[in-house]
């Protein structure tokens, strides 16, 4: 093993590989190969197959094996808009020199020196002649697309993003970039104290060695700010192989990262267009070369003929000197492999020949392992003891706000047995980029190509599950229809200490929200994990609530552990529709529930009971009301808890506020006073439309708050200014003081009729009161009662009470329910 450690730097190392190649060259860099195969952490056969696909051998040497599908090179339509001409020429002249680690073979290697330059130039001229406009990025309310955003990149911001969002999972971090210090895990602390031999003896070599970085090449020479920005925005558009995943960058983010990557370069916008001219002859020569050299086997270009195929893979050996590997051969592309790569490839070919005759399909386990090597999933995710964020890269995985949630919370999740854990549909969403559940991580789960999204979840599911079909919730938990409330209570005992639910959490809690978990994880996994978390996830921070499989809470479901887990499942399955666990509810109420303590609290909002001009007033006495400032009426009242203000304060959709308490009651509709046309004596004014404040000519004028915090509503009705102060008096009791001033002071004084009560039926309730059919009892002062009269109309019965207003009157009305 030790003899291979130097190989990790192999791509930088001068390799003398046969007599012909005498200059110093790097070798192709394949991330999975460099990290694992060089250390024999994967089977030789797998390592060889990895080279077959990643070096795109099968682009010329066809294979029936689907997993050997060639990676292929970028689509080159529009190459002239994307790459600088000089870089293309240099790269074609000597690929490994221009871009160390490139997986592109040297297709001009066998040409004499003088011709090579001309051929490279012709090819570059042809490619530079291929123009394609960059796609129009649609701007929407959800997506800000500044004008010519690629010109506005901010390199400092780009540097931060590069180190935060995931670029450095594969690429090299800047040595000088400082991360915020995180506390090393106990394991890391231990590792720091061991030397290499000790680490090897402990079997920790793989986990602790430096992971080689995917080289960038000279980006300044290759890209313009615009073309690099567009590449970062959507790498799959030109590289269907999807090895570079899509990090879901916004246009400004992409421009910022591009600005940082190109910080040492100029700022020309378009690499070639209108700046370089080539004769049509050169371009045509280049086109011809492109086809004849087999470039189109890997690089699609519109209008260039179908690729020419070479010997099928199954017939290939590296025994003959006419090979793409080894010495340069006329007419063949040349792959400058080092001897380890060459040997690995050779044995893969041998194995391929043998297997092909056996017609053996790879197992899902192999398929998934292979796919994860190709896509470098293992750069971030550990699976079956392999991969994961390397020791020296961990500091770049930061949390939002730098909260300490341990490595388990900070690093991308391990994928060992993920097929048992996650539902395939959810895994598909994750790969599609719509399954992000860890908003507290700066790192982003990237987006993969459709092809990858289609196959990987299935393979993982098949690889990890013993039986073909996963157990349903019913299989695992049986009938859970009556268990949700128990589950809610159980969640309160532990889960809520670390997990938010529906975006609500105990103070300071940062973690994965449990909402929707039943659509994400498999019921069986949920069951097993809750019963013994450490068994499924060694060193997890998740504590066990069922030591030895025993519940600690005998009060719920007789302490039956299985039923308790089932109950939590039952609750979480429908958590979006059920009440929050009590502790979260309490935490939430501390933020958003309005709790009048010393003084009343006022909230203007929408309310079902009081309309779109509602003014809700809550009192420390726990009796609250809502006033409708549009209809100028006391609309509703309730007891107990007042209101939750989150919707009013912070929800875009302006939902109506619902009273939290109980004993809720609605008061009769309509304005408080009417003027009756005494001469007609018909009381037409009591017909419905006249209770409408606008039609009746009421004008709401606002309110004043007195020293004790109680609002007094002000409104005008004809010649009267009315002040209306309502406050609780006892349980289910409000007292309303109405002060009326006649602005005109005209003689004779007018008679205002208080609309005392209204209902389908009204009945006497003590000497000065009436109760209606919904149980609201309203009383007026003694002296007024006898002057009141009953008027019955189609809609119901009115009790109206006359009030002669001489300059100023005051009346106190009492509401009980």
């Amino acid at each position: 093993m030790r003899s291979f450690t130097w190989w990790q730097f192999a791509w930088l190392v001068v390799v003398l590989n046969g007599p012909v190649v005498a200059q110093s060259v790097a070798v192709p860099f394949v991330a999975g190969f460099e990290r694992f195969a060089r250390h024999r952490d994967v089977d030789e056969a797998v390592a060889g197959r990895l080279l077959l696909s990643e070096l795109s051998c099968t682009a010329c040497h066809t294979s029936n094996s689907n997993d050997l599908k060639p990676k292929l090179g970028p689509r080159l339509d529009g190459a002239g808009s994307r790459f600088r001409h000089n870089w293309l020429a240099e790269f074609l002249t000597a690929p490994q020199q221009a871009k160390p680690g490139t997986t592109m073979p040297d297709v001009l290697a066998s040409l004499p020196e003088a011709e090579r330059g001309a051929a490279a130039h012709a090819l570059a001229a042809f490619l530079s002649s291929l123009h394609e406009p960059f796609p129009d990025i649609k701007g929407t309310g959800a997506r800000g697309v500044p004008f010519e955003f690629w010109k506005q990149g901010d390199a400092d911001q780009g540097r931060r993003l590069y180190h935060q969002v995931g670029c450095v999972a594969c690429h090299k971090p800047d040595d000088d970039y400082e991360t915020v210090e995180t506390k090393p895990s106990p394991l890391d602390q231990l590792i720091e104290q061991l030397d290499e031999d000790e680490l090897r003896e402990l079997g920790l070599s793989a986990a602790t060695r430096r992971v080689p970085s995917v080289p960038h090449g000279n980006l300044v020479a290759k890209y313009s700010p615009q073309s690099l920005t567009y590449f970062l925005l959507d790498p799959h558009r030109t590289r269907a192989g999807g090895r570079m995943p899509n990090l879901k960058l916004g246009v400004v983010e992409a421009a910022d990262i591009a600005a940082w990557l190109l910080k040492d370069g100029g700022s020309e916008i378009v690499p070639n267009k209108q700046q370089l001219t080539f004769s049509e002859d050169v371009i045509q020569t280049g086109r011809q070369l492109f086809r004849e050299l087999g470039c189109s086997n890997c690089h699609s270009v519109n209008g260039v003929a179908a690729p020419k195929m070479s010997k099928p893979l199954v017939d290939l050996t590296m025994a003959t000197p006419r090979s793409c590997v080894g010495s340069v051969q006329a007419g063949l592309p040349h792959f400058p492999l080092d001897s380890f790569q060459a040997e690995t490839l050779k044995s893969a070919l041998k194995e391929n020949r043998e297997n092909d005759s056996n017609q053996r399909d790879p197992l899902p386990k192999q398929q998934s392992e292979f796919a994860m090597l190709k896509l470098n999933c293992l750069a971030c995710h550990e699976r079956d003891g392999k991969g994961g964020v390397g020791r020296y890269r961990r500091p770049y995985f930061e949390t939002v706000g730098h909260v300490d949630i341990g490595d388990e919370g900070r690093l991308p999740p391990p994928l060992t047995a993920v097929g048992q854990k996650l539902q395939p549909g959810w895994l598909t969403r994750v790969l599609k980029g719509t399954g992000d559940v860890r908003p507290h991580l700066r790192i982003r789960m990237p987006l993969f190509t459709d092809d990858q999204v289609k196959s990987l979840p299935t393979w993982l599911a098949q690889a990890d599950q013993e039986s073909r079909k996963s157990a349903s919730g019913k299989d695992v938990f049986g009938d859970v229809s009556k268990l949700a409330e128990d589950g809610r209570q159980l969640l309160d005992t532990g889960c809520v200490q670390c997990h938010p639910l529906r975006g609500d959490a105990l103070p300071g809690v940062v973690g994965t929200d449990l909402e929707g978990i039943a659509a994400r994880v498999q019921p069986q996994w949920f069951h097993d994990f809750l019963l013994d978390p450490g068994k499924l996830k060694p060193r997890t921070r998740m504590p066990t609530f069922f030591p030895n499989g025993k519940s600690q809470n005998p009060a719920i479901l007789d302490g039956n552990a299985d039923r308790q887990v089932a109950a939590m499942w039952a609750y979480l399955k429908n958590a979006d529709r059920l009440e929050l666990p009590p502790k979260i509810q309490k935490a939430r109420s501390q933020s958003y529930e309005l709790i009048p303590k010393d003084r009343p609290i006022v909230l203007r909002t929408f309310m079902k009971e009081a309309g779109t001009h509602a003014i809700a007033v809550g009192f420390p006495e726990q009796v609250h009301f809502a006033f409708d400032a549009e209809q100028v009426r006391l609309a509703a009242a309730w007891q107990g808890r007042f209101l939750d203000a989150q919707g009013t304060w912070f929800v875009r959709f302006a939902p109506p506020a619902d009273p939290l308490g109980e004993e809720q009651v609605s008061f009769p509709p309509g304005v408080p006073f009417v003027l009756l046309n005494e001469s007609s004596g018909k009381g037409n004014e009591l017909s419905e439309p006249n209770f409408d404040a606008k039609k009746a000519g009421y004008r709401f004028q606002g309110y004043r708050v007195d020293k004790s915090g109680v609002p007094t509503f002000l409104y005008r009705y004809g010649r009267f200014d009315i002040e209306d102060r309502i406050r609780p008096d006892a349980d289910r009791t409000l007292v309303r003081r109405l002060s009326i001033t006649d602005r005109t002071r005209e003689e004779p004084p007018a008679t205002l009729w208080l609309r005392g009560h209204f209902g389908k039926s009204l009945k006497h309730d003590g000497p000065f009161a009436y109760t209606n059919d919904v149980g609201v009892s309203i009383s007026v002062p003694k002296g007024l009662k006898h002057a009141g009269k009953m008027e019955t109309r189609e809609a119901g019965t009115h009790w109206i009470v006359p009030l002669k207003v001489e300059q100023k009157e005051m009346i106190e009305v009492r509401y009980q329910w």
Partner: protein
Amino acid sequence: MVNRNTLLAALFCWLMTVVAANAVADDFADENDYYRLVSVDVAETSTSSRAKNWKPAPDGLALEVSGLTVLDDRRVAVAIRKGEIWILDGVYDEPPKDVTYRRFASALHEPLGLLKHGDAFYTAQRSELTRIRDTDGNGEADEYLTVAKGWGVTGGYHEYAYGPKLDRDGNLWLTLNIGMGLKGAELDRTIKDPILGYRQGRWRGWGMKVSPDGELVPVCAGMRSPSGIGANAEGDMFYTDQQGNWVATNSLHHMREGAFFHHVEALASMNEEGSPIRNVKKVAGGLSYPEAMKQFPQLRPPAVWFPYKKAGQSATDIMLDESDGQFGPFAGQLFIGEFTQAAMHRVFLEKVDGEYQGACFPFRSRFASAVLRMAQGTDGSVFVGLTNRGWSSLGTASYGLQRLVWTGKVPFEIQEMRAMPDGFELVFTKPVDRQSAMETSSCEVSSHTYLYHSTYGSDEIQKQNLTVKNATVSEDGLRVRLHIDGLRDLFVHELVASKIRSHNGEPLLHPHAWYTLNRIPK
């Protein structure tokens, strides 16, 4: 295989190929060199701006600034979206580390403006314009008087009320967002125009003014999302609108009696008492804007179109630079907030045949979040109120207050763009390099218009490239006169002056300008 001769021929051609000189390598000038940003208080939330369960940051005030007014050389007052007014002291300090916060008022329903006028604050809540005072001097408001109400509030969440801003006659101006996607009980609170059939809450999509004696007067109609109101130096009132149905792209409009702008559903209130717009019996839709103007006589073009993406994606507040030079070389011009792109644009206006029209320019980007409100401080610097909740914006924060300060360095910018009978006159902030300015290829000019239709936004249509025939430079080097054939009235004229250099060789900080040429001067 390509033979050797072909390759040699290719080599020969290579040697003969003329490689044009590299394009001028512009160093991207940095807006920050001229206008720097000071963050008074910004915060990032852990929930995204559109999260259904959005939460403010755990610490500090949820400073989602929806109204902003400068009190003096230490303090500003802000309205925040949750419904409060706060007074912030020490906001000019650098760094602003000792800012104090005092709550002045509460229980306001989504206030979207703030004005200090006389001894009171004014703000538009969803359902009314409110005058707020502290009558007992304890520092907390105790009087919330209704100055005006009576517009429809159906409960649809788009029905924002913005303002107020003051005009030269002491009127308070408000704008009322149109309702969108009304349903259920919301529809019961609408009114309907019997001929056109549109249903909206009363005065929805209208610009209103409240006279000093408290009368609510409908002035003009056809607004979609009029989140910005402001006066120009003459005291005429303008509002901004945002792209959407009937609104091709963001726009700036002069509010005056009887003007109809674009969103036709505002006509649901046409027959209400006091409406200055009557008798629209037919709506011309699906036409180019110039054609629609012919067929829809009530339609008034915006003073300025802001081409989508190029000059923002959602225009907000309007602020007049009244600093007389303390904020740089743009005294008397209007500045327009930009929500989605977290930016600010600049507008030059002139009157042609008695109507306003003019040009917009990029001005400053990279605010920490969506720019909703702006107010000029006593030292000329500009306070900028930020909040992106419910929609989305660029920037690293969710809400807060920043201050934009002129560094004293004059950027090389197109200060003014004036229409001429046969072209434009450009006024620059610094003398130009004469040679670059006289080169007719230094400026690219094109024109386009939009579709006037019920669908969301419009592409730029009927695009045409124009040729600069001749460019002359004034003696002082500050003015460049472009003679251009083929100007089209009612078209937006785009100018890209990327090759003009200042006398000391700088490129323009922003080489683009868009002039809304409603009328070609005679």
